[in-house]
């Protein structure tokens, strides 16, 4: 964990996020919205049997929410759906490697909750 909010890792993911975009012939898509700040994220997923075969995101959000989406999608792509469903918030927050205030934690978890909702429905 670093005290610095905008670590090099976060800034790199923010400037060049992985899996950015939208899968046109997706199996499912879901929009997430943070009413506190107006951030939006759109997830689109393609499944193959029990795997998340492909996943992409589009967002209008801050560096924290964008970097969190990039990191989460790296983690779950080509993994079993069950792995993504059982992933804890702490796991993702740990991967971010920065200390977040409660409000900024909401920014980071927007993509996490959106993915959980998409997989549950």
């Amino acid at each position, binding site marked *: 964990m670093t005290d610095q*909010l*905008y670590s090099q890792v976060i*800034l790199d993911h923010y400037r060049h996020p992985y899996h950015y975009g939208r899968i046109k012939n997706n199996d499912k898509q879901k929009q997430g919205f943070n009413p*506190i*700040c*107006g*951030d*939006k994220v759109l997830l689109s997923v393609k499944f193959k049997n029990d795997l998340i075969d492909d996943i992409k995101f589009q967002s*209008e*959000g*801050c*560096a*924290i929410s964008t970097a969190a989406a990039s990191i989460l999608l790296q983690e779950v792509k080509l993994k079993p759906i069950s792995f993504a469903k059982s992933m804890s918030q702490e796991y993702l927050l740990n991967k971010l490697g920065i200390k977040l205030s409660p409000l*900024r934690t909401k*920014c980071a978890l927007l993509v996490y909750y959106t993915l959980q909702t998409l997989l549950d429905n």
Partner: protein
Amino acid sequence: MNFDNIRGDFPILNQKVHGKRLAYLDNAATSQKPNSVIEAESEYYQKYNSNIHRSIHHLSEIATEKYEHTRKLVAEFINAYHPSEVIFTKNATEGINLLATILKSKLHKGDEILLTQMEHHSNIVPWQMIAQEKGLAIKYLPVTKDGTLDLSRDTLASLVSGKTKIFSLTHISNVLGTINNVKEVIKAVKELNGNIIIVVDGAQYAPHFKVDVKSTGADFYIFTAHKMLGPTGVGILWGKRNLLSELPPYLGGGEMIQEVYWDRFVPHQLPHKYEAGTPNIAGVITFAESIKYLIEIGFEKIRNHEVRLLTKAYTELSKIEGLTIYGPQETNLRSGVISFNLGEIHAHDVASVLDTEGVAIRSGHHCAEPLVNRVLNCTAVARASFYFYNTEEDIDQLVKGVNKAKEIFSLR
């Protein structure tokens, strides 16, 4: 009065945040409180905490007298006709909800409510709620490119008609800082329909300017204590007595009744008719100290000081390449509010970097989502807002922090 000494009256300002001097520039969200206000609240609980308008014991008499004293003070402060026109609510939002609910009795399917595009959610959603229930239409007076209301003859004529029953507008935009000349706007609207009920949201105006409800031409005026040195949990609704007298009650319960039978009740006189239940006694009593403090400084001095800060901040922020400032350019049209964006950097990230520099600002859609999304075309904006206890040093810290954000995100 020397403005540099004023900071000493506000203990909260004398602290470090993340190891840096605190520059509190989130005054449009809430203001800080001077010692006299903090002490008054403590004194209430230490010396005469008791319920008002009920018991005849000594403590209750003191509390009741002090509570009603604030009402008188507020009435004088806003130039009301009579103290009974001043109703205490829990905040400005509750004031507008109260109005929307009681005004329903005067509205019928097909009637129209006129708002403006620069309203806070609290002056949009309560009207939408009654519009859905009663089948009313809501229209919006547009905001022009320079951040002011479009008052052209054609626009007004297309929005105001015999169907328009209520016009509710803000005195100052919490995002753009635009100061609306409500007197002129109301006059222009009333020329097209003289029967419209006028509501003014003064939450951002009352902390910075002298309110004169008689001269605005409004039927109702709403503001909140916490944005003007007062405690949270106290809102003020002023309304014309003839209207408030004929309108139905809002909440039912103790204090708002004159007589109660098994099958009916007779509502109390104004203002008690609209103050059901135990109010925020400590808060209302404390609010008197806020008003006294503001009167002692004087609104002319407050405005002059804020204009100095505004001019400095506007000039220095404008020099930063890639920074966009929203709202009117002219200082005389703008209160101490500057909303901005820094290139593609999200407002939250700007606010987070500023926080590490000890600078408190707000970021987001500022509870004015349609304005920010549809008129300014962004998801969020950063907002610095000043009050009279701010200093030039606060502005220097703001500018330094914005430059730091630019550096971190290497904005080209």
